[in-house]
């Protein structure tokens, strides 16, 4: 797979195969629950057959072998005309393996092949009499698990019946980058439009003829923008299709009975958001299954139905989308609620960094663990997170996300000669502050009988600015379940603006959604609304003075592909006083190491896409500049053999995930970085 065409083909195969596997899962879940029977075998067979055909064409042998074994089971179901529900489980496992293989992960599958073959004994007698290698009529050969002998790939692969019909389907597959480029270009044109109007002296000073032409151009530009945004949005179902299987697995593992539903799966969201939303969403669901929904006995006692209810609801609200994860479990404890009443509200308590008791941290999905991570993820997109809960009645986590990332409605304001923007969705109103009072030692204003904290926007952002005049204008901001008032020099008005990323050099700075270039060429920094509701920062002079030692504190790099585990490790290490950087896989980690010479220790998972923990360790050891960098491997494989391989690759310590607790991790890290 080196040439560009092959890479493009492989990419298209990945997209299509994943889509088909998702559809198979939905159907198989219906079979498992008894809602569907043998009549769906044909459809399933077609999907897996198409995947198999394309895989053999592209030379993905492992995929072809697994797909073939699935075909064999389905062919027999078809002939037997019954689909026993217990056949669904091994088939769902097979789609999971196929999905991993399609994503390029080497999945061991020989046990699976044996299980698939064995599962066929669930089919009516008579079939059983035939030994598996004899093969039933529709399938042409034995489900051996080894490479099938008789198959002639070229004759069989490009299946005409199964390949999506090429005519009559008004859909076009376009690489996402092309659409991104289109949207970028539309954004640039909008920027030029803004500059043009500015140069001509503003909208109201144009000669009538010119104004009409400009208006027409602007209308078309708006339409072009909406169309381009529409091309970049995809329905939530792209990721939610996989959730039922995930929830079913989690519920089984936790020994809970959970009914799961997704409402509003056709709600559209920015592709970039969808690509990153799956992990946080799965994390919220796992929290709900493990900690929210009670065991059956406890539910019976509380007078609730035995089956817990868990749902994801997506509702569009103009330029925003609301995604709610709701369960009818035990909710937060009365204790937490009391804390919330006294302090910063429920959302504030639960999203406080590292919020969790020690007892919960040892548990992979502690109630609060990771909620701060989900919240900062949502904030980084310019959205907000809200939690509602009543003890004993369940919990709702509400994510408010922008529909499109590249173009944002902002309110622009001026403070200390700089212009800032904040998403309009977070601004409740603009007021003028005539008098302030002090509440709990903090300045507050009375907003129609409600006291709200008030602070200078410059202090909130951390900027240097001369004092404000008396009676300054101010924005009433609502974010993360908190409301606050930020004062400024002037409010410039609302603007639909193109969001430009600040870039990786500001990756560690936080608090910014990006920047926007104004009509006059000036730059406005776009501020995360939560920055304005969090309270003033107690630091910071103008940045030109090298006030601190630029040498950074030793940092720990956590390498882990699972969002949950990664955030858990981060919170443990940060609570232990170590600054933490994270990477999603070995490759990501290597580029991070290259960029950041201050990393003093690496904590890595073993099984990861792209580059595994062993390969990463070897790469570190082989690099003369980093050969002595301490590496700790944390993995779910606790066997002696794995430990030996880890140590041989050059790891300094090796910990099994099941034996893993925060004290061991911190003690190991302390020993290695010698604090």
């Amino acid at each position, binding site marked *: 797979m080196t040439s560009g065409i092959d890479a493009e083909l492989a990419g298209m195969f990945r997209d299509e195969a994943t889509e088909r596997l998702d559809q198979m899962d939905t159907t198989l879940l219906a079979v498992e629950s008894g809602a569907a029977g043998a009549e769906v075998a044909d459809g399933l067979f077609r999907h897996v057959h198409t995947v198999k055909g394309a895989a053999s064409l592209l030379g993905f042998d492992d995929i072809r072998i697994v797909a073939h074994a699935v075909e064999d089971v389905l062919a027999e179901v078809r002939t037997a005309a019954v689909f026993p529900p217990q056949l669904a489980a091994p088939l769902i496992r097979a789609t999971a393996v196929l999905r991993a293989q399609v994503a390029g992960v080497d999945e061991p599958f020989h046990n699976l092949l044996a299980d698939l073959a064995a599962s066929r004994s669930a089919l009516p007698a008579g079939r059983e009499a035939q030994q598996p290698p004899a093969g039933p009529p529709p399938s042409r050969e034995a489900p051996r698990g080894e490479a099938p002998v008789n198959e002639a790939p070229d004759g069989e692969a490009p299946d005409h019946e199964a390949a999506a019909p090429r005519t009559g389907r008004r859909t076009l597959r376009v690489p996402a980058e092309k659409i991104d480029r289109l949207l970028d270009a539309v954004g*640039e044109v909008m*920027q030029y439009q803004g500059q043009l109007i500015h140069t001509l002296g503003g909208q109201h000073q144009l000669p009538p003829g010119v104004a009409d032409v400009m208006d027409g151009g602007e209308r078309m530009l708006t339409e072009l923008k909406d169309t381009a945004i529409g091309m970049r949005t995809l329905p939530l179902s792209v990721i939610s299709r996989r959730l039922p299987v995930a929830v079913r697995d989690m519920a089984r593992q936790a020994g809970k009975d959970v009914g799961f539903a997704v409402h509003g799966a056709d709600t559209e969201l920015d592709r970039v958001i969808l690509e990153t939303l799956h992990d946080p969403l799965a994390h919220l669901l796992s929290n709900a299954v493990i900690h929210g929904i009670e065991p059956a006995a406890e539910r019976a006692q509380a007078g609730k139905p035995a089956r817990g209810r868990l749902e994801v609801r997506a509702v569009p609200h103009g330029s925003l989308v609301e995604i709610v994860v709701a369960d009818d479990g035990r909710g937060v404890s009365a204790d937490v609620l009391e804390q919330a009443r006294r302090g910063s509200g429920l959302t504030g308590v639960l999203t406080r960094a590292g919020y969790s008791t020690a007892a919960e941290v040892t548990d992979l999905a502690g109630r609060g663990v990771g909620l701060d991570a989900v919240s900062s993820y949502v904030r980084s997109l310019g959205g907000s997170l809200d939690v509602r809960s009543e003890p004993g009645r369940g919990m709702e986590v509400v994510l408010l996300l922008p529909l499109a990332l590249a173009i944002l409605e902002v309110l622009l304001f001026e403070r200390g000669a*700089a212009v800032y923007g904040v998403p309009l969705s977070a601004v409740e109103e603009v007021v003028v502050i005539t008098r302030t009072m002090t509440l709990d030692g903090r300045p507050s204003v009375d907003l129609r009988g409600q006291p709200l904290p008030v602070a200078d926007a410059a202090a909130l*952002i*951390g*900027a*240097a600015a001369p004092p404000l005049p008396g009676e300054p204008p101010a924005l009433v901001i609502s974010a993360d379940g908190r409301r606050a008032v930020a004062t400024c020099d002037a409010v410039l008005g609302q603007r639909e603006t193109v969001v*430009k*990323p*600040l*870039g*990786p*050099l*500001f*990756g*560690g*700075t*936080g*608090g*910014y959604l*990006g*920047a926007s*270039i104004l009509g006059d*060429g*000036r*730059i406005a*920094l776009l501020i995360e609304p939560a920055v304005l509701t969090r309270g003033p*920062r107690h*630091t*910071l002079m*103008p*940045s*030109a*003075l*090298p*006030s*601190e030692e*630029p040498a*950074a504190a030793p*940092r720990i790099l956590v390498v882990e592909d699972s969002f949950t585990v990664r955030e858990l490790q981060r919170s443990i290490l940060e609570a232990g006083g170590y*600054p933490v*950087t994270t990477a999603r896989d070995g490759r990501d980690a290597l*580029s991070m190491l*290259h*960029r*950041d*010479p*201050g990393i003093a220790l690496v904590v890595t998972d073993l099984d990861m896409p792209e580059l595994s923990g062993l390969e990463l360790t070897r790469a570190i050891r082989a690099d003369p500049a980093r050969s002595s960098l301490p590496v700790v491997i944390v993995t779910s494989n606790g066997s002696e053999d794995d430990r030996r391989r880890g140590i041989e690759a050059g790891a300094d310590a090796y910990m099994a995930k099941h034996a893993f607790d925060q004290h061991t991790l911190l003690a190991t890290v302390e020993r290695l970085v010698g604090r």
Partner: protein
Amino acid sequence: MSVYVCLRVAAEAYAVPVGDVREVLEAVPVTAVPRALPEILGVRNLRGQILPVASLALILGRQVTAPSALLLVAESGGLQAGFAIDEVTGVGELSGPTGPAESPMLTGAVLAGGELVGFIDMARVFGSLARSP
């Protein structure tokens, strides 16, 4: 022998491989980004794109004496940024470092034209800027 852009910052002479240099611009006021690293002066608008601007003097551990006149736009490892410098003294061939240098941002130094020229390693410079404040 390789080709370098030779420049002056904080009264000292340095060289950057010509392949790492995109362009040299006149310095204009930047938009400060509060809470960023002390060496990062802010961002500026470069033909409709956001360009981070950093102080090369501070990165090299020097004092900033006067506002810089020029901006050297450099690229390494897919990252791009502008670096405030005082003067470009020329573009030409140098023999490469012959002796060690003090700053970790330099690969070494060479005596050329009667003064010590430090060789700037752009990958290390960008690496130092990628850390958290």
